[in-house]
C-alpha cells in the first residue's frame, strides 16, 4: 500500500480522501490555495502545501504546482478527487512521467471516454445500448429525414460545434424536419462558423440513471448497481438515490454484465460511472462515462457497505478486486443524498461568506460529508457544494423521512444554503411517489409559483 498520498483537491472530497487514507495508515499531503488556508482539509492532513493564489487556474488546476508539491513532499501517489484535474489525461501523463501513481484509469482510457463519439462507438461495440442517432455529421435534409426514420421521432438536431442550446431543434415529425434542419444549420453556421449537424433520439422525460463500477488493473470489473440522479437543476444534480425505483433486479443484473464486458474490453481500471438516460418505456441508453469518483458515490456506499475511495486506493496500489470485495455485492435498504450548496434556495445565486452557526444532524442512518465548520468561510472562487447529507433507511420511505428530520436539524447561518429547497422537495407528493425525470425541477418550480 502507498506510504504517502497527495490529495489534489479541496472541500469535502479532499477531507473524504484524507479520512480514508488515515483509516488505512497512509500519510496525507493536502495542497491548498491562499483562499483555503483555514480549510479543514489543510488542518486534518498530515502535511499541507500552499500551491498558489485563490483562482483555481493558478492553484488547484496548476499542474506544475501540484506535481512540484508532490515531489517536495515525496509522495507515492496523487488522488485527484472529482472535478479539477480528475479527468485531465495530460495530468495523469505528467504523473506517470514523474513516477507518481495517478489514482485513476490510464490516461489513454480517460482520453477515449472523454471524447463523446469514441465513447459511444466503444460502448456500442460492446453491446451497451446507446442513444440512437446519426453516427456522425448529416450531409443534407434528405439524409436527415432518413436518419430520423431510422432513429424514430421525436429526434433532436444538434450542432457539432454547438453549445448553449443554439443550433438545436426538436423535431416531432417528417413534415417539420426539413425547415428545422435548415434553421438549425444556419443558426449554427452563424453562431459557430460551422453548420454541421448531427441527430439523436429525443427523450421527452428522461430519467438519469448511472451505474457504479470498480475495476482493477488485472482485468476484473464489477458493477455495484445503479444510482438515480434525475433531480437536477440546469444539469446540476441536487438529489441522488440508490437503488433506482425504475431498475428491476433483472435489468440491474443484465446491464451490470454488459458493462463489465465493455470495460474489460477497453482495459479500464479505477472506480467509474456509466451514465444512462431512461425513456418513458423503461428503455435505457448510454450517454457518457465518468472516469473518477463521483460526488454522489456515498449513496452506493450506504447500500452496498463498500468503501469506494478505499477501493480506489487499493486498486491503484495493485490489489485485485477479489481481495477488496470478498462477498457478493448486496443492496441493503435505500440511501438518498442531498447536496447542500451555498446558494440562495430560490434565486440560486452563490452565497459565499462566513458561516456563523453550523449544527450538523446526526443519529441513526445519517451521514454528513463536509469540510465546513462553525466560523468557516465559503470562498467565492470554487463550486458551491459545502456538505452532502446522506440518509440510509430500510426503504425509500424511511430514508425520505430521515432526510426530512435531518434537514430540520441541519442549521447553517451566515450564508444561504439549499436546505430550505430540499425541505420543500421532500414535502412534494410527486417526488415522494418517485414520479420524476430530469425535468422534475422545472415543473416543481412552476408548482411552487402557483401554490
Amino acid at each position: 500500500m502507498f506510504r504517502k498520498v497527495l490529495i489534489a483537491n479541496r472541500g469535502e472530497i479532499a477531507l473524504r480522501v484524507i479520512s480514508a487514507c488515515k483509516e488505512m495508515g497512509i500519510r496525507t499531503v493536502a495542497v491548498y490555495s491562499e483562499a483555503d488556508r483555514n480549510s479543514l482539509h489543510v488542518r486534518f492532513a498530515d502535511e499541507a502545501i500552499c500551491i498558489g493564489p485563490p483562482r483555481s487556474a493558478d492553484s488547484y488546476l496548476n499542474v506544475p504546482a501540484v506535481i512540484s508539491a508532490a515531489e517536495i513532499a515525496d509522495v507515492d501517489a496523487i488522488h485527484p478527487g472529482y472535478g479539477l484535474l480528475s479527468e485531465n489525461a495530460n495530468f495523469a501523463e505528467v504523473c506517470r512521467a514523474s513516477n507518481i501513481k495517478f489514482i485513476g484509469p490510464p490516461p489513454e482510457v480517460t482520453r477515449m471516454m472523454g471524447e463523446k463519439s469514441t465513447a459511444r462507438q466503444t460502448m456500442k461495440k460492446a453491446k451497451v445500448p446507446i442513444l440512437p442517432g446519426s453516427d456522425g455529421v448529416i450531409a443534407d435534409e434528405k439524409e436527415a429525414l432518413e436518419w430520423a426514420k431510422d432513429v424514430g421521432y421525436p429526434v433532436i438536431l444538434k450542432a457539432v460545434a454547438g453549445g448553449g442550446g443554439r443550433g438545436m431543434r426538436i423535431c416531432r415529425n417528417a413534415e417539420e424536419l426539413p425547415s428545422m434542419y435548415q434553421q438549425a444549420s444556419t443558426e449554427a453556421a452563424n453562431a459557430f462558423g460551422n453548420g454541421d449537424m448531427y441527430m439523436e433520439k429525443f427523450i421527452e422525460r428522461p430519467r438519469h440513471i448511472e451505474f457504479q463500477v470498480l475495476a482493477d488493473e488485472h482485468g476484473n470489473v464489477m458493477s455495484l448497481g445503479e444510482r438515480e440522479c434525475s433531480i437536477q437543476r440546469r444539469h446540476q444534480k441536487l438529489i441522488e438515490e440508490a437503488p433506482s425505483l425504475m431498475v428491476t433486479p433483472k435489468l440491474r443484473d443484465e446491464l451490470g454484465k454488459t458493462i463489465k464486458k465493455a470495460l474489460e474490453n477497453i482495459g479500464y481500471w479505477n472506480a467509474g460511472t456509466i451514465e444512462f438516460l431512461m425513456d418513458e418505456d423503461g428503455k435505457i441508453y448510454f450517454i457518457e462515462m465518468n472516469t473518477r469518483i463521483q460526488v454522489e458515490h456515498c449513496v452506493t456506499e450506504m447500500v452496498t457497505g463498500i468503501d469506494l475511495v478505499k477501493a480506489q486506493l487499493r486498486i491503484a496500489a495493485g490489489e485485485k478486486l477479489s481481495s477488496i470485495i470478498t462477498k457478493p455485492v448486496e443492496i441493503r435498504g435505500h440511501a438518498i443524498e442531498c447536496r447542500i450548496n451555498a446558494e440562495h434556495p430560490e434565486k440560486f445565486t452563490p452565497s459565499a461568506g462566513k458561516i456563523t452557526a453550523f449544527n450538523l444532524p446526526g443519529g441513526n442512518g445519517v451521514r454528513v460529508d463536509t469540510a465546513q465548520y462553525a466560523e468557516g468561510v465559503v470562498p467565492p472562487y470554487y463550486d458551491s457544494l459545502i456538505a452532502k447529507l446522506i440518509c440510509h433507511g430500510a426503504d425509500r420511505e424511511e430514508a425520505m423521512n430521515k432526510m426530512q428530520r435531518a434537514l430540520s436539524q441541519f442549521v447553517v447561518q451566515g450564508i444561504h444554503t439549499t436546505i430550505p429547497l430540499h425541505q420543500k422537495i421532500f414535502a412534494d407528493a410527486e417526488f415522494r411517489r418517485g414520479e420524476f425525470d430530469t425535468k422534475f425541477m422545472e415543473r416543481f418550480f412552476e408548482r411552487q409559483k402557483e401554490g
Partner: protein
Amino acid sequence: MMDRNKLEELRELVDFLKANGIAEFDLDQDDLKVRIKFAGEAAAPTGIDFAQLSRLMGSAPAAGSGVAAIGAAPSGGSAASELAAEMEEKLHEVKSPIVGTFYESPSPGAPPFVKIGDQVEVGQVLCIVEAMKLMNEIEADVAGEVVKRIAASGQPVEYGQPLFAIRAR
C-alpha cells in the same frame, strides 16, 4: 494613514472601551468605519483553535521535515512576531512565486547568488527554486540591502513563502 489627532482620538476610544470591559466594538457612520476587538481570554471566541486542533489530531508532522514544518505552521507564531518586528523596520519580503526547492547558489559548492549585506538591484537573481527539474531564477523585485535569508538552501518552499528580507532603498 492616520494623523496625529485621529490617533489620539483612537487612544481615547480604546481607553474608554477597556475601562468599560468592552470586548468588541463596531461603528459604521457616514465615511467612518471602526471595528475593534480586544485580544485575550474574554474576547477570544475564535471558534476552532487550530493549534489545539492539530494537537488533538495527533498528527503533528514529524520534526525535521521541511515540508512538514510548512504544514504545521502556515501562519506560525514565532515567525509572525519576527515579521512584526521587521514590518516596523519596513523590510520588503521576496516571496516564492512557485512551489519547489530553494537553492541559494547556482550549483552545489558554488558561492550563493547573494549574501547578507549585499546591495541588490531590481531584476538581480537572488536564488533558484527548483520545480519539476526546472531551475527557476528568482529575481529581486526591489532594490536595496539583503537583510536576511529566510529560507535555507535545499529546503522545500510553498507558494508565497518568504525567501529574503530586503531593506528597500
